[in-house]
């Protein structure tokens, strides 16, 4: 473990709450800056709606471009939270406690943005609701055969599910904020969120059941979401897309990029909110191990994907394979292999590499790599159609770039705002961990720590031995 001394539960409690009460100007500046970036997003989308989808760089035969790449990318990131936190909850991993909330928030916001991209991508976004089944005067219904309609079903379920999965464990914390806040707008806001939570035995009991069920239920949903996203490609005839392993390949890629975001977010939170006591080195070590495992699994899938294509000898498939490995797309392809496989394995295989800074840096690389992966799925396959006469290329326009960068701003803005308003580390789950003496660093209570903290005036409850 670390060299730090082990403070008592009460001290930890006081520190955690103390952080929540403090105003954090850095976050405010961050959310304002990212909010400005979000305006770029709004402007670019507005510009596109006003002028037509032609302001993008997509063309024939590359009918799908940055928007679909970003759609898959963000949906992938959304697997950070719900899936990871659900798996950790189901497996009762104690070190999950400080992680879950920040991960689940990533899911919700990434999903909201990811879900927007298919709409941004539409030629006529004003009538997007033709895809939704509802009684209408045209007596028409969507085509349930289309993977896009499955996408709608899956993403709707996932966004509602992950919003509730974030919300349910948030209720007790909202109640804490409510009872600690002075009367005013903030208190009313927390009161709305807390729904009247009082922490009675029945409430806790029901809540625990609910979280347990949601954690189990959300895992197959998360898997299905990215499988269905992969079917947008795999269910077609397009060479380079029609692959049986796309489902699991996408799910693995999603978890991989999800962990990458989580690593970055946690490293930032740890520094920005001084949460070293909660997001400990051990948490980073464990996540780092998971991270390198996913990197290897991803590498295996990539290998399997390209080996079978190469070995099959199918003419059209080989054309796509060729531009990827040796042709126009060789540079991004091999960059992807390096940042997704070589660097993570080289760095994360060693305990010293599984510390906050290196894992966050590896995470940044993986994000780039996973974005490239989606780029390399969408563009090369489309620009190499079967009839050689139609071979084309693709270059994004400033509108597409603006929306892509702006989306990052929207995400950051939402995330910073959330962090400002609500505890990004689950207070009650940390308390529960300390009570049981099992959570990460809250091992043995030492008098040393109690003495250093002014908040620990009260007797020390349930320490390590309790």
């Amino acid at each position, binding site marked *: 473990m670390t060299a730090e001394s082990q403070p008592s539960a009460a001290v930890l409690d006081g520190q955690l709450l103390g952080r929540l009460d403090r105003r954090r100007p850095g976050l405010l500046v961050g959310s304002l800056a990212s909010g400005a970036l979000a305006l770029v997003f709004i402007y670019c989308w507005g510009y596109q709606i006003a002028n037509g989808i032609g302001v993008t760089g997509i063309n024939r035969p590359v009918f799908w471009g940055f928007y679909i790449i970003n759609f898959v990318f963000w949906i992938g990131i959304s697997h950070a939270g719900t899936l990871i936190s659900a798996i950790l909850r189901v497996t009762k991993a104690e070190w999950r406690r400080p992680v879950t909330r920040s991960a689940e928030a990533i899911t919700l916001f990434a999903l909201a943005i990811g879900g927007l991209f298919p709409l941004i991508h539409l030629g006529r976004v*004003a009538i997007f*609701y033709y895809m939704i089944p509802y009684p*209408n*005067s045209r*007596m028409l219904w969507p085509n349930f055969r289309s993977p896009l309609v499955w996408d709608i079903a899956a993403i709707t379920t996932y966004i509602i599910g992950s919003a509730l999965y974030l919300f349910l464990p948030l209720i007790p914390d909202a109640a804490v904020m409510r009872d600690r806040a002075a009367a005013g707008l903030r208190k009313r806001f927390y*009161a709305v969120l807390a*729904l*009247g939570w009082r922490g009675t035995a029945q409430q806790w009991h029901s809540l625990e059941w609910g979280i347990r069920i949601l954690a189990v239920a959300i895992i197959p949903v998360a898997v299905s979401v990215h499988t269905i996203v992969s079917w947008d490609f795999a269910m077609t005839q397009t060479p380079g897309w029609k692959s049986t392993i796309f489902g699991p390949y996408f799910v693995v890629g999603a978890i991989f990029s999800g962990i990458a975001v989580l690593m970055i977010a946690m490293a930032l939170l740890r520094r920005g909110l001084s949460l070293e006591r909660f997001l400990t080195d051990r948490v980073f070590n464990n996540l780092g191990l998971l991270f390198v495992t996913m990197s290897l699994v991803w590498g295996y899938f990539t290998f399997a994907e390209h080996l079978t294509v190469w070995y099959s000898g199918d003419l059209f498939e080989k054309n796509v394979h060729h531009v990827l490995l040796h042709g126009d797309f060789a540079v991004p392809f091999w960059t992807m292999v390096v940042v997704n496989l070589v660097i993570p394995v080289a760095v994360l295989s060693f305990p010293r590499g599984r510390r906050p800074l290196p894992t966050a840096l590896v995470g940044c690389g993986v994000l780039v790599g996973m974005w490239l992966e989606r780029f390399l799925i969408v563009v090369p396959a489309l620009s190499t159609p079967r009839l050689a006469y139609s071979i084309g290329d693709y270059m994004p326009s400033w509108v597409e770039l603006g929306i892509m960068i702006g989306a990052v701003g929207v995400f950051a803005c939402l995330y910073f705002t959330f962090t400002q308003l609500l505890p990004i580390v689950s207070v009650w789950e940390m308390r529960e961990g300390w009570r049981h003496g099992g959570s990460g660093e809250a091992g043995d209570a030492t008098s040393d720590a109690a003495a250093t903290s002014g908040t620990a005036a009260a007797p020390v409850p349930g320490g390590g031995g309790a």
Partner: protein
Amino acid sequence: MAVTRPEGLPSGRSRSLGDGEDGGRFGCRCAGPLAGIWILGLALVACGPTQNLPTPEQPIAYDHQVHIEAGLECVRCHRGAEEGVHAGMPSVQACAGCHRREIPDHPEVQKVMLANENREPIRWAKVNVIPDSAMVHFNHRAHARAGIECLTCHGDVASMTVAEPVRNVADMGWCVECHRENEASDDCLACHR
């Protein structure tokens, strides 16, 4: 060329927060009305034909009833209704041809005579409109051939002093229903192309 305009979807109005201590009530206080608005909206969208249709203003106060009572038939003026794809409008000369004998001094008729003299068409306003964005190519003679009466879509224009729409002819569900009842084609390409 205008892009298809979306149908108005219902949207819920947000309310101010309830009292802070029992903020939980806020969610449900809104949920009921919101669900209600949503369902109402669906019902409105689903019942397209009942919506109010505007009666356009015509350049000349033409009275259908008077002309029918005088013994004319619909197809006397709207010849294409039986013979062509478009029902069509009578030429100014055709109007003037009759009115040279019949009530030539009527102030509205005077407008027709003036247009005829100046060789200007009369710009009648379309009463039953299928918007361009629907991209529908309606074929009058195919419907006449199938024995569909004019009044099925246009209403009893024969007893109207001012021609007004009685049905929303752009309501696709109504078209499809009728096609299915009469075993006409329900292929999209029958109308949209």
